């Protein structure tokens, strides 16, 4: 079966306020989906709920990943099943070295999958290889997780972690924002190298630019908690030139 992620009529609220109001989305192996939409429309909420953040209440609907109902799984179990979220706002964790953090994460994931622990030298080799892929400086990965990193460095570190953990499905939440022009190209090329036909990507972005590098198979517009429009890559171009006003007109505040 090709289907990887299936979201059906997902309704999610936080503190009594409904943010997602019936999201449907299917992602198959090998696909790249872009999700666009105005600020506050619920893109990050969707990403967090898929990743397993507990602060949200799922009022309705289902999320299956590789045939499993992942709403039943904790965040770490979802990661072990092959999900990855590149955060819009990566968190600084003073005192936790990036190396130990990734070593722990990989060990946990491998154990879950019944794989033997990685040899120290293989781990270091993997680190080197992936550092090269996203051209992240070794001194950054030698520091505490994201501590004192610049905005762009944090984003690059997200992609580095993604490369290390090799997820089946990666959700990249505005990974492009904060990256300079060269960094954007490098990171995008890195992502392209990670594409295998077996994995899939959901790319949340406000800009067409990233999609020039990472060609999406589908573009969705999330507006007020619903996917109101889906199309091919040309939809992104259309949004870039026309903005969201036409969408907003087409989908006025839905009656509750």
């Amino acid at each position, binding site marked *: 079966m090709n289907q990887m992620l299936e979201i059906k009529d997902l309704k999610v609220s936080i503190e009594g306020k409904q943010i997602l109001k019936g999201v449907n989305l299917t992602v198959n192996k090998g696909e790249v989906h872009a999700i666009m939409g105005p600020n506050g429309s619920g893109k990050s909420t969707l990403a967090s709920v898929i*990743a397993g953040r507990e602060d949200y209440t799922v009022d309705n609907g289902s999320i299956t990943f590789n045939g499993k109902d992942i709403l039943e799984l*904790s*965040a*770490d179990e*979802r990661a072990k099943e092959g999900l990855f*979220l590149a955060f819009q706002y990566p968190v600084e964790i003073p*005192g936790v070295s990036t190396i*130990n953090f990734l070593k722990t994460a990989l060990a946990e994931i491998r154990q879950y999958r019944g794989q033997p622990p990685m040899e120290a030298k293989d781990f270091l080799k993997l680190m080197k290889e992936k550092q090269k892929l996203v051209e992240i400086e070794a001194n950054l990965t030698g520091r505490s997780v994201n501590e004192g990193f610049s905005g762009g460095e944090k984003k690059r570190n997200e992609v580095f972690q993604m490369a290390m*953990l090799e997820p089946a499905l990666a959700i990249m939440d505005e990974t492009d924002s904060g990256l300079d022009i060269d960094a954007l190209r490098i990171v995008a090329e890195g992502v392209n190298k990670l594409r295998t036909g077996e994995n899939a990507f959901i790319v949340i972005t406000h800009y067409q630019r990233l999609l020039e590098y990472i060609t999406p198979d589908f573009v969705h517009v999330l507006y007020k908690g619903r996917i109101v429009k889906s199309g091919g890559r040309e939809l992104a171009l259309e949004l870039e030139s026309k903005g969201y006003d036409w969408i907003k007109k087409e989908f006025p505040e839905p009656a509750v």
Partner: protein
Amino acid sequence: MTLTQEKPDYKRIVSDGQITAGSGGIIGKWLGEVKRRLGDSAPELKQIQNNAASEFTKTGLPGKKDEDYKYTNIRQYLQEDFIASKDGLNIDKTSIAPYLLKDAVNLVFINDRYAAELSNREMLPEEVSAGDLFATPDTLRDKVTDNFNKAAGRSDNPMALLNTALAANGFYIRVPKNFSCVVPVHILHITSGDGKRLYNPRNLVYMEENSQLTLMESYYNTGKGRIFTNSATELFIKDNGALENYIMQDEGAGSMHNDLRFYTIGRGAKTNCVTVSFNGGMLRNDCNVFIPGEHAEAHLNGLFILKGNNHTDNHTLVEHLAPNCSSKELYKGIIGDTATGVFNGKIYVHPQAQKTDAYQSNKNVLTGDKATIDTKPQLEIYADDVRCSHGTTTGKLDGDALFYLESRGINKQLAKKVLLQAFAKEVSDAIKNETFRAVVERKIDDYTA
């Protein structure tokens, strides 16, 4: 000159127990027990101990009504049925081995008593003297005992008075002028036995001008009884000396420990003190730093990890008496379940102590819903050209950081542990000795599980 501790010509220094005031109280009983065991003390100390005993009979044990013991009611913990005498040494060389530290001089005290046969002192440089304070050879005695109670005697703390009155066992270390003791000295203090016992180690460290020392202390309890350890240590660091002092308390939930420390820091001298406390039924640490010398530097670091209904109370008092000195304090607490933590840090800057640079920080993570911390910074500043500040934060583990770790495949429990270890690391990193730091890190690992 190498000292061995078993020669009969050593003098025991102990109170004679002749208390003039209120000798019928608990102090009289405890003193009686101590005296029966040890006989007569040197006359010059007899006076000091008698005075302390009669002062104590006036103050009694501190309790809730004393502002300094508001949250630690010693009176409730240490009651009359505690026995101030020791059991035999029921620990042998094999069982002591795991507690000893490699590449260090190990001086072992079991139930207060110096255990020469369990200690290893081969690495002790002959310039340095160390051993049982109350069996000090006459040749050394003046140098050591001249300073007995010189610092603790300034305090009217009842537990200090009690310790002085009952003092009969403990360690001393003397490092001569211009000598750097590269081999660290480890004091291993183990209590054991059943029943209710009061132990009262009294220690003295005397570092002459321009000398250096790393002193590491571990406190364990292997017995099943109710143990109350009332320890007091006077540490004199003369001009330009440097002391690294690490203390690890891991005596278990059934034990109680009141630890008093008195540092006197000379001109240009430095001290770095790290106190790490685990899982104590009742732990009270009083760290007093007296800075009469100019350009001196004191660093105090503390970590306390509590669970169950543990209680740990860290009191610090830094007294700046000379200009151009600095003191830095960092105390961190991880408080779980229904445990209670206390931090009270007092910085006192005397009028003449201009250009003092004093900083104090207390950070706590509450991991239990019913855990509490009472934290109180106290700055008393009587000089106008100083830099003094304090900060305190208390909170739960950062939810964003937890989710970040979990989203990478690290389960919640392990993620919490990773964050707690990162929190604790700032304090354990202040331990420069690798062996001791490794022991502490292993315990942090255990206690954050």
